[in-house]
């Protein structure tokens, strides 16, 4: 029996290959996700109400401030939050299954098979004491029931797919014997090894040069088209996000502050944070002056003031912004949490 049968989702197969925002049920649906940290009587919320939906075959980008809760959101989907963190409220459904109601056994079957994740920090995600080929092959054997030789052959093919030269020899390498970008690609191979339906990619290309990055993105795009994989793509590389994503969510201080299809987000952003962020994109040109930045610091978690959390840094702020938390502006499938957008 395949793990997907256990989930009671086998009747959904074959997965239709669809484009962005296809009608019908999303593969992953997150509503009002809150994640809190703390001990004893001191709690603070790092994620303060995130809504996200991803359909099969879709690539949804998550961008935004460092520390805004992107990785925590991703880890929550895999139910791999760090110690001390807990989901304080919210709903998460994956292929019809309530992720928060699933027991640990059920989650284990999902992780590494129907849901694959490329972790932001490959060194802590990989086992330092095992050759990387074994780690990939073990996962393939567990989830697909292949024999040792077949699993290793598949692992080798996967390393080749992510552009690792001499994949047969590299199967035997330990994580510390690989370069940063090679480790990142091993994580990618591991994440897609069992044909996941959802791939969560947390900064999957930070250690890759642009040619290898293009190769890895092309590989992901191919499996997206062929298998209808949905991808949650977390990245600070906005030019890359604009190239590969269908929709984009922008996070600030634990919330999605703007969401739109990619063209609308980059061509007609409605949230001042998005606008100010886009102005900071470094471009390959001959300028040598200082780089543009957004002055100021994001708010301190646990002490987020009333009103709009971006107000102290916002170039469009007005009186209402510090008084009341902004309502949501909506136009079709474009949303922004901002008073100025609502004016």
């Amino acid at each position, binding site marked *: 029996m395949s793990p997907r049968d256990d989930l009671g989702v086998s009747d959904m197969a074959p997965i239709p290959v*669809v*484009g*962005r*925002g296809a009608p019908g049920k999303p593969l992953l649906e997150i509503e009002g996700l809150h994640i809190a940290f703390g001990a004893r009587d001191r709690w603070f919320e790092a994620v303060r109400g995130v809504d996200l939906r991803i359909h099969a075959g879709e690539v949804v980008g998550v*961008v*935004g*401030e*460092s*520390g805004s809760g992107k*990785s925590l959101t991703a880890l929550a989907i895999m139910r791999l939050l760090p110690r001390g963190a807990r989901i304080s409220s919210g709903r998460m459904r994956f292929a019809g299954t309530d992720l928060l109601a699933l027991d640990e056994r059920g989650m284990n079957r999902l992780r590494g098979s129907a849901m694959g994740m490329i972790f*932001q*920090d490959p060194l802590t995600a990989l086992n330092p004491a095992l*050759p990387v080929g074994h780690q990939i092959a073990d996962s393939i054997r567990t989830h697909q029931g292949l024999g040792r030789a077949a699993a290793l052959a598949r692992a080798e093919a996967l390393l080749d797919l992510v552009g*690792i*030269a001499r994949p047969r*020899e590299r199967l*035997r390498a330990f994580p510390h014997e690989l*370069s*940063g*970008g*090679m480790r990142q*690609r091993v994580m990618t191979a591991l994440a897609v090894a069992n044909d996941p339906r959802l791939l969560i990619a947390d900064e999957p290309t*930070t*250690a*890759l*040069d*642009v*040619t*290898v*990055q293009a190769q890895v993105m092309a590989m992901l*795009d191919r499996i997206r088209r062929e298998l209808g994989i949905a991808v949650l793509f977390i990245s*600070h590389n906005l*030019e890359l996000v*604009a*190239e590969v994503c*269908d*929709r984009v969510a922008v996070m600030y201080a634990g919330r999605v502050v703007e*969401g*739109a299809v990619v*063209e609308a987000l*980059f*061509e007609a952003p409605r949230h001042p944070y998005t606008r*100010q*962020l886009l102005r*900071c*994109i*470094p*471009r*390959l*040109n*001959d300028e*040598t002056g*200082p*780089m*543009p*930045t957004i002055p100021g*610091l994001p708010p*301190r978690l646990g002490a987020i003031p009333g009103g709009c959390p971006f107000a102290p840094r916002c170039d469009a702020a007005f009186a209402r912004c510090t008084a009341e938390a902004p309502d949501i502006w*909506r136009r079709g499938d474009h*949303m922004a949490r901002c008073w100025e957008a609502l004016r």
Partner: protein
Amino acid sequence: MSPLDDRSGERHGGLDRPHQGAAPLLELRDIRKEYALRQGLLARLTGRAERVAAVDDVSLAIQPGEVFGLVGESGCGKSTLSQIAVGLLAPSSGQVLYRGADIAALRGEARQAYRRGVQMVFQDTHSSLNPRKRIRRALAEALAASGQPRAAIPAKLLALMDQVGLDAVMLDRLPHELSGGQRQRVGIARALAMDPALLVADEPVSSLDVSLQGQIVNLLRELNARLGLTIVLVSHDLAVVARICQRIAVMQAGQIVEEGPPARVLFAPEHPYTRTLIAAVPRGLAGRRSTREVAPAEA
């Protein structure tokens, strides 16, 4: 005179300011680093395990006060070369000279001066941080090691945190209690706390949002211009490298294939690999493949 005493004033990008003539601050001579490739049992038994060169005869001279960029293929040897430059890794052959002296021969006081004067920001953000040490202690120890008087340390800690855009509450956190980009900035703060003459920064801004990238790059520019901090910047981000480096080297498979000012290397590349690299830089919406189907969407 140490480069830190050389307050030569503003030097915007310094593209027009060659550094020839001065004695190099750091020199790499014919550096080679080999590793045995892990092969099957047979190769091991017959003793024919192949060796591969992660760094294959690289020579470089870093002039005091310059910002030098190192770009290239993933796995081409940039981190290996960086670690050799800061003395964390011994080369299989070749020499590293700091202020003209072979670091392998440095002893006592001179060795200490090299250890302190050359600092590294690691690509892997966990490498430089002890998982059981709170950020405050990690940074305070670095400040103390650089000779800061005890009384000055609390204020210096706050100044450092501010420079890298971190809230002072993070001082009481452990490394694993930070986001990827927050930890990366602690790594930068720790290296700067040592008040180095040479900073080797291996992908220091890869996990930062573009606003923070700008802030860190501006900080490095300013330290370079104001204090003459010499910087070796390893980065996959060609736009960042173009912005602050006076000279860059492009590496492929353990070798430097092209070297020169960014205006030449990035805008009139000669080597085919450099051209391939530049052609692969993402181009935002303009780079979207026209083949992608467009269907109605929802937010």
